[in-house]
Each structure stands twice: as C-alpha cells, then as structure tokens.
C-alpha cells in the first residue's frame, strides 16, 4: 500500500494537497484546492478573512474530515501516507505539528513542562514505569529535558525555563508554542496565523525566528496567514485562496502583482460602482 503511495510524491516533495473539498451545511468552505509544499520550504497559505484558510488547516491536521481530496505526506520514516482518515492525536507522531492562533500553552506549567508536553509521543517508556519512576522512564525524562533546554536556548528563552507560562508576555508564549512543536523533531510545522496579536516590530522578530528554525532544524513550514507583511517577507512560495477556491500559487513578488489576488484583498473594481 505505502510502497505504491511512495510513487505519488516526488523527491523533495513533503506535503501534497489535492482537490481538497469540505462543506458545512451546503456552504463550500474549501472547494477543490490543491497545492504542494517542498522540503525545507517556507510556504504561505494566504487569503482574506473567511477565505477558508483555517478550514484547509483543520483538514490537514484532521480536526475536520474533508468531503473529498487527498493529503499526501512524507512521514518521519520516509514513507508516504494519506493523512485523510488518520486520528487527530496520531498526526503528530507522523512528523506534522501545528500551533494555534490563540496560543494554547498550559498556563500552570513551567516553560520546560510545556515543552515536555510537546514530547508526549516521544517517550519510549510505559505509563506505569513513568508513574513508578523506573530507570527507563527517568532516562526518557532526562533525554526530553535536554532536548527541551537546547530548543529553549536556540529561541533565547532558556532563562525562563522554570517560570510558569501564565505570567509571560504574548511574544514569549508564541515562542513557547513554536518551541513545543520542535520537540517531536517534525518534518513540517504548520503555523496558524503566527502574526496575530503581534505588533510590527514583534512580527519582524518572529519572522526571523521562523527562518532561523527552518535553517537549524531543516524542516518545512506552512504558514496560514492573512498578514501580508509576514508572508511576503519570509515565504519562498505563496498560495492564495478566496471563497474556498484556489487563486494562484507563486513566489511572493508574483503573487503581489497577481490581479486576482489584488482583487481578493482590495475588492473588485466593479464593486466600487454602485
């Protein structure tokens, strides 16, 4: 089965969304959308509010079950699978992790513990040995803590290691969430509107962090965003959608010039005439 599917993704291709559709009560939120993400690429999925970006996002991560289409993904182990129909909690162990628009960190836990939570699927020991603190569970815990500390260091927040996440600034929390996705050594991370709630300076800073992460950890990044500043600055390629339909897919400079995209963002010229 999977050897047949391996032929469906060419080398260097990591995620291929084909003819994806989903509708809610007759409304087509996503209508026949296809795009392709390469390894180590920062890929932007853009569109105005209500374009269906988040629906595409939730279809990829299996929070929604699409009505039609295929989502081929090359996993950690190098085999190609169709994500459609997989369990939500199994997606992360395949090598695909997401963040949330409204930053879902556990406020009561320290930064370190939040990162360890991100490594939930990485432990080799059983729950019983974790509760009894058997040597193999302790070894797991040490290994994950070391991994977490390295990531915190890279993101420049190692000094906040043992502080509860609750009192931290929004910028730090965004970093924590990003750091947490790295715990499973993913092949691709999907960021849901990472610029939401950040000011211009913070957005620029965060864009740098994203690039740094990509270069250091050799992973692909899929950005779902409507903030053009962030997208145009760091994306290698961008796919624009509107009303659930595909508009264009190209390098940022070309997307900016694209007439359909301009219309989608600024409104059609005709609509100005009353």
């Amino acid at each position, binding site marked *: 089965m999977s050897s047949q599917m391996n032929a469906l993704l060419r080398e260097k291709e990591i995620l291929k969304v084909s003819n994806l559709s989903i509708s809610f009560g007759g409304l087509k939120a996503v209508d026949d959308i296809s795009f392709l993400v390469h390894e180590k690429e920062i890929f932007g999925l853009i569109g105005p509010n209500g374009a269906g970006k988040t629906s595409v996002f939730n279809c990829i991560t299996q929070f929604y079950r699409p009505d039609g289409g295929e989502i081929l993904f090359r996993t950690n182990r190098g085999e190609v699978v169709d994500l459609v129909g997989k369990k939500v909690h199994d997606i992360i162990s395949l090598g695909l992790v997401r963040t949330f628009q409204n930053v*879902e960190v556990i406020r009561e836990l320290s930064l370190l513990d939040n990162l360890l939570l991100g490594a*939930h699927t990485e432990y080799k020991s059983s729950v019983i040995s974790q*509760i009894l603190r058997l040597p193999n569970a302790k070894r*797991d*815990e040490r290994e994950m803590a070391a991994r977490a500390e390295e990531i915190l260091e890279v993101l420049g927040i190692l000094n906040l290691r043992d502080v509860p996440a609750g009192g931290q600034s929004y910028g730090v929390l965004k970093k924590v969430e990003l750091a947490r996705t790295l715990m499973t050594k993913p092949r691709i991370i999907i960021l849901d509107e990472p610029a939401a709630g950040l000011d211009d300076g913070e957005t620029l800073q965060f864009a740098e962090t994203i690039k740094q992460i990509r270069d250091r950890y050799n992973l692909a990044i899929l950005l779902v965003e409507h903030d053009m500043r962030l997208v145009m600055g760091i994306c290698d390629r961008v796919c624009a959608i509107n009303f659930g339909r595909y508009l264009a897919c190209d390098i940022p400079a070309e997307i900016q010039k694209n007439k359909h995209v301009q219309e989608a963002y600024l409104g059609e010229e005709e609509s100005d005439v009353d």
Partner: protein
Amino acid sequence: MEKNKAISLLLKDPRTRYVIIGVLVATIPFLATAGLLRSAVVILIGSILIYSVAGLGINILLGYSGLISLGTAGFMGFAAYIAAYLTMNLGFPFEITLLISIAVPVLLGLFVGLVSFRIEGIYLAIATLSVGEVLRRSFEELVGFTNSFAGMRVNYPTLFGVWSLDRNGTFVLIAVALTLAMILTHNIVHSRPGRALHAMRGSTVAAQAMGVNILRYRLFAFAVSTGLVALAGVLYVHFVRFTHPDIWGWGLSLNILALVIIGGLRSIYGTLLGAFVVFGIPSLILVRLPIIGDIPGVSFVFNGIVIVIVVLLYPRGIVSIFTDIGKLIKKTGRA
C-alpha cells in the same frame, strides 16, 4: 559535607516530606494510648485521613483533568460494601478483599469515564450525581448483600491472615495508605501522564494536537480517581467498622468536593488541609461552642461559608495562604 548534601537533597524531594508527614500522623493514636488525646479525636482524625485519600482522587479528576464527579460517596460506599461482604460473609483475606473492592468500582469508574467522552461540565456533574444516588439506593435495596438499614459490622483488618490489627494498627495502616496515595499522586502529576491531564483540562483540541489520546486519558483520570476513592472506602469500613446506606449520600460527595476546593485545587498538601477544615473544624470546635453548636447541620453551614470566603479571597485554596506567607518571609529575608 557530602553526607549533609545527600541529606538536604533527600529532604528537598517532596516524597521524603510525604513520608515524614505519614510517620508523624502515624504517632497520633499512640498519643491517645498515652492519655494525651481523647479516643474520639483519634477516630475523627483517622476518618479525616481517609477522606484525604478520597480527596486526592477527586483532585486528580477535578484539579488536574478538569472533570467533575458528584458520585464520590457512592463509589466509596460501593467499595466499603464489597469489602464488608467479602470479609464478613465470605471470609476472604484482607489483601484479596482490598484488590477486589478497588477493582470493581474502578471498572464502574471506567464506564463513567467512557460516558465523559460524550458529556462535559454540568451534564457530567448530573450524570455522576445520579450514578452515586443509584449506588446509594442499591445499598438500601440489596438487602442480601448490604443488610440495608440494619447496617453491616466489620472487624479491624487481619494482615497476611495472621496479623490482627487493633485500632492503633489500623490507624497506622491508614497513614501508610495516605502516604502512598500522596506519592502516587505526586508521581502522576509530575510526569508525562500528569502533563497530558493538564493539557486535556486546558484544551482538548491542543492536547490532541500534542498527540494526547483524549479518551485514553479520560479513562486514566477516572480509573486513578475511582481507585483512590475506593481505597478510602475500604479503609473507612475497616476503621469505623460499620457501614450504613445513609453514610454514602450526596452530602458526603459534596463535602469531599468542598475539601478539594477549599484546600486547593492541584495541591496535595491543600487536600490534607481541606480535609481537616471540612471534616475537622465542625466536629472538633464548632459543636463545642455555645448556641452555634446546637444548630442542626452546622457543619454544612460552616462549609458553605468557608467555600464562599475561599473562592472570593483565595481562589487557589487556603494552601495558597501558606505559600504566600512563605514568599513574604523570603522577600523580607532578602531585603
């Protein structure tokens, strides 16, 4: 030098502190034997410790996992009746009784956990409340098993078939059980499964994205919680040596819930503290007072008032008063 370091490291481990608390608590009944405490007080403190064990179970459920149960008393009573029936009617040894009386309620708890996958919040509260009441009604109706309103008498436990405990021995057994329950709770909440419970309480969606299997951890939370509540039930029936349907009404469930909230959600020390406030203060102090002591149900009135005060002033429970004081001392010490 090296030795001192090792000792201070050992003292820093919370588990060492739980053992110290356990040992200190275990000396209480011998104070009574020495004539320093009244024996009624010993029985009261023993039952407070038992309620603490049940409280730890509810804290795992409500505090860490964000799930509510109002059927605690039913499950505790269920375990108590199984223990009573197996030891008194069938002559089972204590150890096997203990295993069965925990396993059977846990199975029922797992079923409730399965249901909790579908319903949440207030609906889960109502569902568990009715499970608890169904159990209590069964204690009244299943005369052959429970002896109904005549109640059942039980002996102090006999360990390994030869070692018959007296009241003090049973008290020590309770202290041991409480210490183990504290260590178990600590280990769970400070390891991978505990973090998964935290994530599940925060947001099921985010937890799933982290790879947490929600159904599995709901079942885990209900199993551990029911296990501790059932353990409390077995200890109760062997310590008080009596069980009666009226003991296991929803009033007890509410009191156990109250002790967790008053003491402090997500705090092991808080649970102990809460148990002393909810079950200790009314019987030790209030009933001795003139006028106030004569009010029927004064303990419920007291608990209600304490909950309101705590929720308004110390939403993290009265245990936070002590952590605040500790911080204050550190601050002034540094200044």
